[in-house]
């Protein structure tokens, strides 16, 4: 699976990293460390026609993006 680790980056970096990583194929898994990138990536991906699934992993969040 296509994976990126966007923990430690502040907005808008995680969204831009996700946008880039989507070019390399689906599904894409994105790891982030706060709710701001969760909400921003969800907005971007949903508006671009993707589906987003989010689950907590310890103190982080794992987003899975599919078509």
């Amino acid at each position: 699976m296509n994976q990126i680790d966007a923990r430690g980056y502040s907005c808008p970096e995680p969204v831009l990293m996700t946008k880039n990583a989507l070019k390399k194929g689906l599904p894409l898994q994105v790891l982030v460390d706060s709710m701001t990138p969760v909400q921003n990536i969800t907005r971007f991906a949903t508006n671009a026609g993707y589906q987003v699934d989010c689950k907590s992993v310890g103190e982080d969040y794992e987003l899975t993006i599919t078509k």
Partner: protein
Amino acid sequence: MSDPALMVGFGSSDDAAVYRVNETTALISTVDFFPPVVDDPYQFGQIAAANALSDVWAMGGAPRLAMNLLTFPRCLDLQVVQAILAGGQSKVTEAGAVIAGGHSIEDQEPKYGLCVMGFAHPEEILTNSGAQVGDVLILTKPLGTGILSTAAKAGLLTPEEHRQMVDIMTTLNRWAYEAMMPLKPNACTDITGFGLLGHVRELADGSGVTAELWADRVPVAPKALELAREGIIPGGAYNNMGYLKGAVLLDEGIPLERSDVLYDPQTAGGLLIAVPEDRAAALLDRLRDRGVSGAAVGCVRPRGEAAVRVRRHG
């Protein structure tokens, strides 16, 4: 400890402190400073000054005296420091006030702002607790500068979009203040870090009313809605959503990017003015005459279940 001369203090979440000096003079005092929101140091100084000065106009007063507050790292080029201060000076002069001194200390990151004092007649002080049922709410700048600043950090704005963003943040609320004062508004506040919804909520709670906003009538800076759809939204907007939960009732069918912008934290945002309906058209005319982009964005209703209700259409 209390002092009967203190007209506005901590209690009411207002924009500045107000102290009655005598029967005809009230002193308005406020302070604000923050780290750079744009790369250009001169523009940063202008924005920080426009933001700090704004609280005095929002209380119905005229700024007269300002003091610089500055922190900067030892490695920072002296020319950068001078440019920040020159930017601040330019806006204080435009405001009709003077800089009389200030204080600077070393810090890891530059921060700049001002302590500002101004005066008003005690009877002309505008708080955020005077709004009356039937008032029209008029906003004097477009929203979206938090979103645009976030985009600017990643170089996502064209030079024209960047210029428009800086123009919004460096425009003084002096002109909106001069337009509104002869029309005797009931309440006023300025829109800053808590976003339009956060500041409208304070006005509604302070006045014991419900503020109704019309989502499609709220002016938004070019590109901001598009960026919101792309998830370029500052963390502060989500913080605002969190703390306003329960205070804001959003009607169904409002596009998400529209409601996101209503929560967007603003730097040096516009004034939000509550004016009786029969004087609203005159206020919009007076704003337009002074080159201010005023818009009627809502109205004041009797207190309902929430402090703020957002309708899809006006």
